[in-house]
Each structure stands twice: as C-alpha cells, then as structure tokens.
C-alpha cells in the first residue's frame, strides 16, 4: 500500500514537472498571438482555482467572484496611473486589497447559507461594479483605465508570459498546499455536512470566512496579473458575466478535482476563441456545452477522465481476479 502511494506521488510530481516544462518551452514554438492566449488561460486558471477553494472544497457557491477579481485589477491599475509606486508593489497591493474587501464582504456573507449566500455575494459584487462604473473621476467609469504603464522588461508579450507563469505556478502550489492541509480537509467536511462539522468542535463561520478571504486573495492575484497583462481595465471585469464565466470554467474542468478549474480554463478559452472565430453565436454553443456537461459528464473533464481511468483499472483488477 505504501509503495503504491509513493509511486503515485512520484508520478504526479513527474507529471507536474512535465507540464511546467511544456509551458516553459511553449513560447519557442508558437507566435505571440498564441502566447497571449496561453497567458490568458494561465491567469484564468488562478482565478478559477481560487474560486474553487471556496466553491468546490468548502461548498460555498459565490455569484460574485468577479467583484474581488476587479478589486485586484483596479487596485493595481489605479496605483500605477496615480502614483510612482513600483510595479511589483502595485501587483502585491491588488491581492492585499482584495483580501481586505473579502474580510468585510465575507463577514456578512458567511452568516447566510445556500441561495441566500449566493445572492448576497452577487449583491456585493454588483456594488463593487457600481462603484467602479459610477465613480468616474477616480476610476474613469465605463471608459476604463487604459494604457497602464508596465515596466520595460515586462512589456514584451513573452517576458510577461514567463512572469505570469512563475506567479501562476506559485499560486497553484500554494492552493495545492492549502487544499491538502488539515484546513483544506476541514473545509471539505464543512461542504459535506456543516452541522456535523460544528459538532466536532469547528467554529464553522470562521472557517468559511477564512476560505472566503483566501479565495478573494487568489482572485485578487488573478485580477492584478490580468491588469499587467492587458494594460487596460474595464468595469465589466466586475460584472455578472465575468462571475459566471469563472463558475462555468470550474464546472467544465470539474469542481471536485484540484486541477479541474485549471483544465477548465484552458478548454474554455480554447473553445471561446475557436468557436468565436467562425460564428458570433458562441454563447449558444457554450450554453449547449454546459447542458451536455451537466447531464452527461457531471464530474467535468477531469472527473470524466479520472473516472474512466479508475473504471479501466477496476476492470483490469477484475480480470486478474478471474484468471487467478
């Protein structure tokens, strides 16, 4: 049994290294347009994985992740256009600010459950949207903030790609650590059965708030990173469509798998660009994809494959059994 675990972990480590190497050498083979595309996938992967900490692991379905994402993006953008603070600090300020806002918003939200929780998160993100949209003098309203200054060495597409890749890897590693920690396991227990979790001595609201804030910080990282990538930010970063996009990404990949949201991001952006290139009816296609997923592939892409692999192994074992 023990050796089996070791083997599996080694396999995982090799797989992750291979994935990293793949993304690292990718720019050597593809054009700048595609590098941008991959960069977008990477950033979305952080946002979706961050959201999934709260949603897939802790079972708290937020309707308003885009609010915190936009807080990250706008914090960085505003600092860069109004002050001389260096890029690195502006980038850190995004998630910090998103974390602070999460504490306030989350403090209220974790008092509610189910639909009520979701609706409250939606209301808060709409408030954030309204502030960004309405405070013209400060945030430039629906004109957005454009031509955000980014340091010389990060202004090339390839350099920014490597920069993102490193941050994304760090974020995913941190998230991996969190979901596999005692805290992460406690969150899963909370998702499964909040009442019972309370009866084993867990102050559930505090844990939910912690999950909310951690999620918010990662959403903030994604926002800030996207701000540097896009060099323009707009109020629709905070709107409902952006939130639902993140939810769909998580579903697509599979919310009960660590890599689900990351895989979902890659597939989602790929589908988006491919389908949009030959029809304007991408939403229609997306809607149909979601329905198919919900009805035929409930575990998402990662779930589908890992279940297939498990089934194959099971069949293999059964065969061995017969031959003995």
């Amino acid at each position: 049994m023990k050796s089996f675990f070791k083997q599996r972990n080694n396999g995982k480590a090799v797989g992750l290294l291979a994935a990293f190497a793949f993304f690292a050498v990718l720019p050597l083979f593809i054009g700048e347009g595609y590098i941008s595309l991959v960069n977008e996938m990477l950033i979305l992967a952080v946002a979706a994985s961050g959201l999934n900490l709260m949603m897939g692991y802790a079972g708290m379905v937020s309707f308003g992740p885009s609010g915190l994402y936009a807080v990250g993006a706008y914090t960085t953008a505003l600092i860069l256009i109004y002050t001389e603070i260096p890029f690195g600090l502006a980038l850190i300020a995004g998630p910090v600010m998103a974390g602070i806002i999460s504490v306030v918003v989350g403090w209220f939200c974790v008092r509610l459950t189910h639909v009520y929780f979701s609706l409250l998160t939606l209301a808060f993100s709409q408030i954030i949207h309204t502030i960004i949209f309405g405070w013209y003098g400060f945030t430039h309203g629906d004109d957005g903030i454009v031509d955000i200054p980014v340091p010389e060495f990060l202004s090339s597409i390839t350099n920014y790609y490597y920069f993102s890749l490193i941050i994304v890897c760090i974020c995913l590693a941190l998230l991996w650590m969190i979901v596999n920690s005692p805290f992460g396991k406690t969150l899963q227990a909370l998702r499964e059965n909040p009442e019972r979790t309370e009866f084993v001595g867990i102050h559930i609201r505090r844990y939910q708030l912690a999950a909310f804030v951690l999620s918010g910080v990662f959403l903030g990282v994604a926002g800030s990173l996207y701000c540097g990538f896009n060099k323009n930010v707009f109020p629709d970063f905070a709107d409902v469509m952006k939130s639902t996009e993140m939810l769909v990404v998580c579903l697509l990949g599979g919310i009960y798998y660590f890599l689900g949201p990351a895989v979902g991001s890659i597939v989602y952006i790929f589908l988006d660009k491919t389908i949009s290139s030959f029809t304007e009816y991408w939403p229609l296609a997306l809607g149909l994809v979601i329905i198919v997923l919900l009805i035929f592939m409930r575990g998402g892409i990662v779930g589908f494959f890992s279940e297939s692999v498990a089934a194959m192994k099971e069949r293999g074992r059964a065969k061995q059994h017969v031959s003995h």
Partner: protein
Amino acid sequence: MNLQGLVIQLLSGMSVGMVIFLIAVGLSLIFGTLQVLNLAHASIYMLGAYLCFWISSMLSQVSGSFWWSLLMAPLLVAMFGGFLEVLLLRRIYGREMLDQFLLTFALILIIGDLCKLAWGVEYHTVDTPWPLDKAIIFGGLVFPRYNVFLILSGPLIYVGLWSLIRYTRLGSVVRAVTYNREMANALGVNVPLVYTGVFMLGCWLAGLGGALVAPMSAVMPGMDMVVLIDCFIIVVIGGLGSISGAFLGSMIFGLVTAFGILVAPRLAIAFGFILMIVVLIIRPWGLMGKPER
C-alpha cells in the same frame, strides 16, 4: 423639484415596479415550489417581449393586434416553459445548487442567442395600443394612459394570483407541495405535474410582463439581464417564495429606483443592492417570507 414632478416620478416608479412585479412573482413562485432559482426567468420575459413584437407585427393589418399578441405571447411562452421543465429542469431537482445555477445560466445563453437568431440584434418597437395611446391630463399633470394601465394591472394580477393560491383547490395542492413535497406525494398529489404547472404559470407571468413592457421600451438583446438583477433584488426584499412579498418588494424597488435617480443618477442602481444587502443581513427570509424550516 416641484410637486408635479414628484407625482410623475411616483407614478412612473410604480409603473416600472408593477411590470417587474409580474416577472419577480413568477421567479418567487417557482423558487417557493420547485426550490430552483431560475436564472433564465428574465430570458423568458425577454422571449415574451419578442413574441409580442412578432405577433403584433404579423397581425399589423388586424385591428387590436397588440391585444391579440398580449393574449398569445404569454401562452406561447408558458408552453415553451413547460417544454423546458419536462425536458431539462426535471433532471436536476434535488441536485446541488450549483448545477441548477449552471443549467439555468445555460438557458440564458441559449434563449438569448436564439432570440438574436430569430429577430436580429437591432432593437424593435411596438406601438402603444389603442385606446391607451393618449395621455391623461389632470391638474396640469401629463401622464401616459398606458402607464396607468400598467399600474392598475399589477394589483389585479396580484389579487388574482393570491386568490388562486389561497382559495382554489389548485392553490391548496400547490401549497401542499410547497410545504412538504414528500407528504404531498404520499397523499397522492402528482408532484411532477404540479411542478410543471407552477413552472408554466411562472413563465406565463414573465411572458405577460414581457408583452406588457414591449410598447414602452425597446425590445432588444440584453434586456433580460437588467431585469434579472432587479428581480433578484425584489424577491430578496419581499422574501423568496412569497407572492405578497414580491408585490411589496416591487413597490419598494420601483419607488427607490425612481427617486434614487433624482438623488444620485449614477448610483441609483446601487440603492437596490444596498436594500437587498440590508434585508439579507437583517432578515434573510425577506419582509414577507418565513424563516427556513
């Protein structure tokens, strides 16, 4: 701002509130019975508006074309709703909330794009029907008759719906299912049929709202999302599942938005959300709802 202006604002706030009431009450009814928060509810409303436009333009030679479409559009929408319920929604009852959100969100995308395919991306208008195309002039106030019609039709539908649920056999069946699904099932109520029926009723109301709104605003893509969020605000204020709550919520919402625009135009939309947040925090089950069992 003089008194006349205030009265006009009050009346227009109420006419907005009453149309949204029709949509919100359907959303609330569906949630109360089916325990599904149907995100696509506003898309159903949009479909109602498009169908109203389509039917009235096809019947443009017939007199009273609008009234015919007002009758037919909601019925068509209700049938479409029944089709959705039987084909799709039925598969996800009792699943996690996220699945319900995503399925109904997918419907938003699909219905939105189908409307675009059928009627294009440009906006359409429906003429204000006779005899409501004039204005009422009263004590120096000029106010469109159509808006008065809307203000009156809201309470009418409310009373009708309330009596339906309260006093009829049908209503008691719906209440039984809402209160305890297993028990109703054990007592021989055909629960799936009630679900389909309530869903169709909700869709009929949304379709009616859409048809009624067609003469006073442009029919175009995206008109659903604005209303969706407004509906959330209303049902949360009033209490999810409560008909009276939806009515009260719509009145409050209509007035807050109408007067909010006077106070702070850019932030008007935020007032609704602030109201929603306050209600959710203090009384999550809403002003007229009951605390969760």
